[in-house]
């Protein structure tokens, strides 16, 4: 039986909810299951997933080829040469030029329009991925765009159609789930696609009554909460300090095993497994 590639975008309206940390760890979890995994970092900020997985050293080289060049059909080299590997995961690192992506795409769209051609700025990432047979070569595709609603996020959602939503169980975090419901229907209509939410992942959960109520409310909206990640500040901070996944951090940078950290790794593994099942199980 042919199984579709698992493809999702990590989405959150607010920054700082562990979005890139989650994306990187889910990627490593799948790679550890023997899957071929590609992660695309679309966040031009320095502290992005490429930094976490320690593959961000070319981000300010303006002469280097970059995904931005491929998105506007001005590549300087092969798509595969953009890819770096970290902990068994293929990563397409972020490049500083992503900051100007909206402008570059707009110019390209205007140029095409002048010549009477259709060219939509929000569907270019999927074009590049298809042209390079990403869906035939990888089992898992994870795209980590910045939280801002712009062409990077739209291209990511258009290319994956499925979302994983890390969620900080606070008033602010709750609002961001509402933000999702404001953003996605418009995108679905404009791009003629159907978007699904694979799961909402509470992070930094401490178990107060308020937080419990929020989880209840999310579930009552019909969303799946596959796992709840408890407060693991020091583990995830350690990942950023050592530039590695939580799996490697516990294995290599902890002198003794901590029960609660092992539990967090198990939850990440479980989450990755549940996400895989969304494409393996008949819909």
């Amino acid at each position, binding site marked *: 039986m042919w199984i579709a590639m698992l493809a999702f975008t990590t989405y959150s309206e607010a920054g700082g909810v562990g979005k890139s940390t989650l994306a990187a760890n889910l990627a490593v979890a799948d790679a550890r299951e023997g899957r071929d995994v590609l992660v695309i970092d679309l966040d031009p900020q320095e502290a992005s997933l490429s930094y976490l997985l320690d593959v961000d050293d070319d981000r300010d080289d303006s002469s280097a080829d970059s995904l931005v060049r491929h998105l506007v059909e001005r590549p300087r080299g092969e798509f595969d040469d953009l890819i770096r590997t970290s902990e068994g995961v293929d990563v397409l690192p972020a490049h500083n030029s992503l900051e100007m992506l909206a402008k570059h795409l707009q110019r390209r769209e205007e140029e095409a329009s002048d*010549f*009477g051609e259709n*060219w939509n700025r929000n569907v270019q990432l999927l074009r590049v991925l298809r042209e390079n047979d990403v869906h035939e070569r990888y089992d898992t595709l994870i795209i980590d765009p910045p939280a801002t609603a712009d062409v990077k996020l739209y291209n990511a959602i258009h290319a994956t159609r499925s979302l994983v939503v890390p969620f900080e169980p606070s008033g602010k975090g709750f609002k961001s789930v509402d933000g999702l419901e404001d953003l996605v229907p418009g995108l679905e209509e*404009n791009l003629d696609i159907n978007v699904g939410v694979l799961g909402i992942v509470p992070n930094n959960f401490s178990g107060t009554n308020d937080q419990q109520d929020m989880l209840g409310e999310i579930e009552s909206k019909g969303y799946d909460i596959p796992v709840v990640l408890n407060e693991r500040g020091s583990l995830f901070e350690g990942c950023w300090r050592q530039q590695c996944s939580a799996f490697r951090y516990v294995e290599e940078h902890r002198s003794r095993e901590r029960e609660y950290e092992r539990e967090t790794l198990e939850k990440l593994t479980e989450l990755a497994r549940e996400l895989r099942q969304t494409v393996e199980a008949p819909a």
Partner: protein
Amino acid sequence: MKSGAGDDPFATEGSEDEDEVETDTGPATTPGLDESRSEREEDIKQTSPTTTESASELPYKYRRDSVKDGRTQQPMFLQDETESLIDETVAEIESQFDESVYKTDVVEAMIVAGGEETTPEAVLRRWGYGMKNS
């Protein structure tokens, strides 16, 4: 939006490909233009004594389904004056032929005319423009 997986963006069935085409909602050829073109095509078929059944003998303009058919996209780097010249030429030819012309056709006709030492109008006539009023 729903809970669970969205579409498969990499599905290769024809329907998905058609969806892809539809999502290219950039501001390009207006439907009106296409419509009037196919109406003209009907006119030609009905009235022109030289019309044959063989589509390959129709001029390029009437053979294609879209202005991109039979063409590959080439990026061009043009000076501002050249872009103005193209726009002026489009306007001039539209008034001369009394019909809409695609900018893409005019640009290529200008290049071909330069190479053949003829005029863009002559090239466009060869491709099927100007038949309405001739």
